[in-house]
């Protein structure tokens, strides 16, 4: 699991490097978990199924992130882990394990408005996947 936060004045920019697209989604899930719940643990007590479809892998990643933020905003669902059932290049079907936000256990974080297209990159390199995403906060 390799991701790092890059300098950005107002928002949050992150770079991910992973061995496979499935691992990329796992890293992306960990990033969102941290942004929504801080350092505290999030347990996989419930499951949500997400299908992210797009023109290419960057679209798929963007839609997956959008869905995680939507689940949190409407249900208070915090993602912990993700299992990818299928990835075809322009569609990923995944199961996200997580739990509902509990103010007693989860650290209150500033709101993440959206995962943006600004500077969005998802590239397949020789033996790795590389992505950059900016979150609007």
């Amino acid at each position, binding site marked *: 699991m390799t991701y790092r936060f890059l300098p950005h004045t107002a928002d949050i920019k992150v770079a991910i490097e992973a061995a496979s697209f499935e691992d990329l989604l796992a890293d992306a899930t960990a990033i969102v978990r941290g942004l929504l719940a801080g350092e505290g643990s999030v347990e996989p007590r419930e499951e949500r199924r997400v299908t992210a479809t797009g023109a290419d892998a960057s679209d798929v990643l963007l839609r997956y992130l959008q869905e995680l933020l939507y689940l949190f905003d409407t249900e208070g669902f915090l993602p912990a882990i993700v299992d990818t059932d299928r990835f075809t290049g322009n569609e990923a079907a995944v199961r996200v394990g997580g739990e509902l936000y509990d103010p007693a256990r989860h650290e*209150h974080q500033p709101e993440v408005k959206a995962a943006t297209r600004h500077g969005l990159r998802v590239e397949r390199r020789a033996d790795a996947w590389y992505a950059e995403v900016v979150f609007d906060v």
Partner: protein
Amino acid sequence: MDTAQISVERIDEYRWRVKRGRGMRTEGLIFADAELMQDLEGDQCLQQVVNVAHLPGIVGPSIAMPDIHWGYGFPIGGVAAFDEKEGVISPGGVGYDINCGVRLLRSPLTAYDVRPKLTHLMDTLYHTIPSGVGSSRSDVKLSPKELDRVLERGAPWTVERGYGQERDLECIEADGSLPGDPDAVSPRAKKRGTTQLGTVGSGNHFVEVGYVAEIYDGDAASRLGLRLNGVTFFIHSGSRGLGYQVCDDYLDTMVQAARKYGIDLPDKQLCCAPLTSPEADRYLGAMNAAANYAFANRQLMAHYVRKALTKIFSEDVAQQADLVYDVAHNIAKFETHEVEGTPRRVCVHRKGATRAFPPGHPELADRFRDIGQPVLIPGDMGRYSFVLVGTAGAFTETFGSTCHGAGRRMSRHQARKTARSRNVPKELEERGILIRAASRRTVDEEIPEAYKDVQQVVDVVHGAGIGRKVAKLVPIGVVKG
């Protein structure tokens, strides 16, 4: 000055020209003093000023205010106008938080009246106006039909339901109501909006108690009911999750539209559609609906400020807590402006910028006709904020626009690092500012030094003549998300 191949030349003390380069349809115009400009060297926001200048149908320059910083697509602090027939509309030129904006209430109280009861007041505000991520109201849950009415009508819906006074409406940009189309708003967006009306949100949003510390224009201040030491209430929030979802939904639409209409984009987040297209029409309907939600949101929060005043002071005090003004910071609107001597209808995108109409503008209510539109510029939570009025200069040079706030100068990560070993709420309390916040992380990320000095920003717009200073407000209590 050459910033990563962007050629910028100084025009005068407050203006800088970004020379027209390859692919640009116009030049850039940045308002800044030498020090603020120095801060921007190497910053991505200059590239964003250039990128906006590539868009079809842009009229006049791609404009940046002195609080400019790196956004997505358009810079924050960016203003651009597009011809109604040849131009485009871009959700990235409005932002995720559609009609994120501010409203200011004045009160008959002085800082001396409030100080002894400040703890009680701040606790009451914190508990009656939900703040923080995912905050919702259990007492204002909207049925699908009611939500549609909010999206259609905005602040007037709120007043009809007893949340505020009829006179509030003429003190809101566009009377708090734009032609919103609820049918253009997706079920996902509506789901996000069901329980968030009347909530602050998080990040840089706030409810702030302050007082008038300095007056620069006595006549205008007096007309706005601002007197030295008079206590004010500043509310900063927008359209919450509903607006973010509208933006997301229409960015998808606009990526397709840009392809369909053959628009070449330097950044995907600038995706847009011709103003004459059905895609633009739908987005305008949805954006206006989200803007109405934001107007209603701030109106409802003002109602709860008045409720807190009733509880802690008296009904009489609450009734005298009048609205000074409410203005949008993130919006696109059709307006008529004189371009090269000819009146022209353009779609003005203001992203992190404030409308600043001059005295005499027909869209202003009678009470503002001779002083110009009030402009509200919040600063950081530790220093001060400003009230300005719109000027003729803004109308001729910036499509009636001016700055919107301090603008960040430090990343959130840097701010947290700076604040890590400190107790920021305690520091502020020692300086007479009580903080109530849902999240320590928000407070750390919002430390005063994370922002430019708003005084410097406001001095630039005042000096350049695109806004006129009226009063300075100093905070004594802040509710953060």
